[in-house]
């Protein structure tokens, strides 16, 4: 019963919040959709902290996709032995994880220690920074305790099975129920992080400006249309969208 709640109900609720939250945020708060840069107020810590955190995070996310979404049988049929996978994962994961933790530590430190930034920290940041820190720290601790210094734990046969089960709508709570506590806690905080995602500055992840690489340099646009224009059938949010310009 408890397993059902923790490993089926909670993840699905969080995923639902993730999806619905994004739709809501995009439709109602495009003005708040931003990286919320604070480089203007503090740049020395950001200079190394932010690239460390972001580049570390990209590698860590790639690692999670490889470890969680791709079944072990696939990598083995591709000719990658369990040993090779494990070694690569531990090494790359440790380096990327350390970079991410260091970067996040610096970003948290500047947010706490620089008064200007602390005062500009809003409610969503106050949820996001602890939640993100907890998830990242639990993750790297789990890896360190079990796979770097410990005897090795094959999460690909337990946690990954549970994770994939959620997305193919065949939840297998029993797969993760026996996993070590650190992995379980990491999975739970990650679920909460996904639930909080659309309501925080993390939405800027979806705004990665790859289109910039191919668009023409100069952007011309026609004047914003008045809200009273005959736009039958269009949503109110789209009519107000171009009005804010400064």
């Amino acid at each position, binding site marked *: 019963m408890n397993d059902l709640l923790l490993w089926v109900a909670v993840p699905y609720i969080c995923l639902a919040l993730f999806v619905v939250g994004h739709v809501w945020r995009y439709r109602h708060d495009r003005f708040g959709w*931003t990286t919320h*840069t604070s480089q203007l107020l503090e740049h020395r810590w*950001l200079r190394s902290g932010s690239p460390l955190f972001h580049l570390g995070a990209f590698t860590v996310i790639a690692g999670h996709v490889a470890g969680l979404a791709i079944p072990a049988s696939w990598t083995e049929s591709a000719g990658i032995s369990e040993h090779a996978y494990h070694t690569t994962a531990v090494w790359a994961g440790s380096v990327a994880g350390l970079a991410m933790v260091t970067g996040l530590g610096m970003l948290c430190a500047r947010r706490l220690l620089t008064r200007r930034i602390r005062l500009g920290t809003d409610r969503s940041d106050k949820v996001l920074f602890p939640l993100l820190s907890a998830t990242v720290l639990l993750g790297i601790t789990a890896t360190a305790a079990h796979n770097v210094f410990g005897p090795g734990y094959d999460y690909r046969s337990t946690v990954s099975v549970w994770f994939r089960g959620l997305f193919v709508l065949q939840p297998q709570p029993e797969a993760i129920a026996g996993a070590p506590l650190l992995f379980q806690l990491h999975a739970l905080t990650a679920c909460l992080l996904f639930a909080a995602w659309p309501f925080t*500055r993390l939405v800027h992840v979806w705004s990665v400006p790859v289109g910039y*690489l191919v668009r023409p340099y100069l*952007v011309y646009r026609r004047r914003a249309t008045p809200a009273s224009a005959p736009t039958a059938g269009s949503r109110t949010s789209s009519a107000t969208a171009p009005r804010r310009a400064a």
Partner: protein
Amino acid sequence: MRVMAQIAMVMNLDKCIGCHTCSVTCKQTWTNRTGVEYAWFNNVETKPGVGYPRRYEDQEHWKGGWMLDRRGRLVLRSGGRIKRLLSLFSNPDLPSIEDYYEPVTYDYDNLVSAPAGKDIPVARPRSVLTGRPTAITWGANWEDGLGGAPENAGADPNLSGAWAEKVKFAFEQTFLFHLPRLCEHCLNPACVSACPSGAMYKRVEDGIVLADQDRCRGWRMCVTACPYKKVYVNHATGKAEKCTFCFPRIEAGQPTVCSETCVGRLRYLGLLLYDADRVGEAAATPDEHDLLDAQRGVFLDPHDPEVRAAARKSGIPGDWLDAARRSPVYDLVMRYKAALPLHPEYRTLPMVWYVPPLSPVLDAVDAAGGNQDDPDHVFAAVTRLRIPLEYLAELFTAGDTDVVAGVLMKLTALRSYMRERTLGETGDEAVLQAVGLTAREAEDLHRLLAVAKYADRYVVPAAHKEDAAALTAMENRCPVETSGDAEPREVMLGLPTLRRNHTAGDHR
């Protein structure tokens, strides 16, 4: 030829007394909000001076604007597209708040709430960023009227040549003038080109450059790319903000707030027609000294029937073409060539131009014991006194002193001729001929620059809102779709039907 219309500004610097009314009214209108306390969409700087933000004109350091690469191609000084995306996490060339100044408020409450006592209560400054008492150590025009110039003004990036060594910031030997600055609404805006999310854009109808607040994601590349540092990060909303050229007023046919409230009546607003297809080519002109002529070459003559036909074809309404013909900006920039752009070497093709100030030269004539009403003395000063001239050339012509000297001589000739006429004398037309003006033109230019009536300074055609409505209808649905209603409905054809009225009106 792709004709576009641009609402542009010219400022007559001789008339600027540095009262900052433009800055204050602009601030009250646009930036009296949390997050942009430090931002001045319009500011007035003392020149020579380090500027706001500090040394913003030093592009070796701040990487603003465009440059030509080794193969002569036009590239952003802050780097290409890939480099820009790689520096999203931390922009290496972003000014910090210290480069602007720490915004403060005052403990006004203390003035009324202090208990009765012997001492008069004071309002102490308090940082609006930290909420703590602070010492005010810098501002947007810290060296106002050359105050503190001996310590600071030497850092002015325009004082770079050998001649600059001779500039002495001793009060009796120096010169000063005020430079009001706002967004240049460039034809080739670097900020727009650097915006990774495509939030910044140049409006097709009037050329105003805006930052879409719903699309901006706070990547802060625009701040670096703008060589005039006229895009600001709102640290409360995390979005970029900039001068809007008061577009709600412009659309209503009214001058911008800074223009409307200008005490010295030194600002001019009007349309310029330009060929959008030639912008890139002009910005890539190899020699910096040719950039001024290249930019003038992009502007089109609104009196030319061919231009007018092309303009109507690209959708510019007839009343806008009328306004373009009456534009004081066209007269100052193209007809009399009295106005010059600020730092053309940034290659953004800026659209706020300046009539350079004659006053530094006149001061020098006085100081040398000459008569500033005698054009010969002034002409001699213009050619011999290198310092003010070199300095003005750094600002307005990428260092070409001949062009600045030409404009200053034109102003001198105009001044002396009109002085004689006003005193009831006939006026020496030989002086005018020397600078390429006829008596008629001199009176026109005098009326525009010296009399400067409101209606002559501001020729702003109102926007055509009905076109916008028609465009919306075009964008959101097929022009010939049926509404599904039982009653018959007119088919929306958008622009052409609406324009027809103006075209007809044009033949009156």
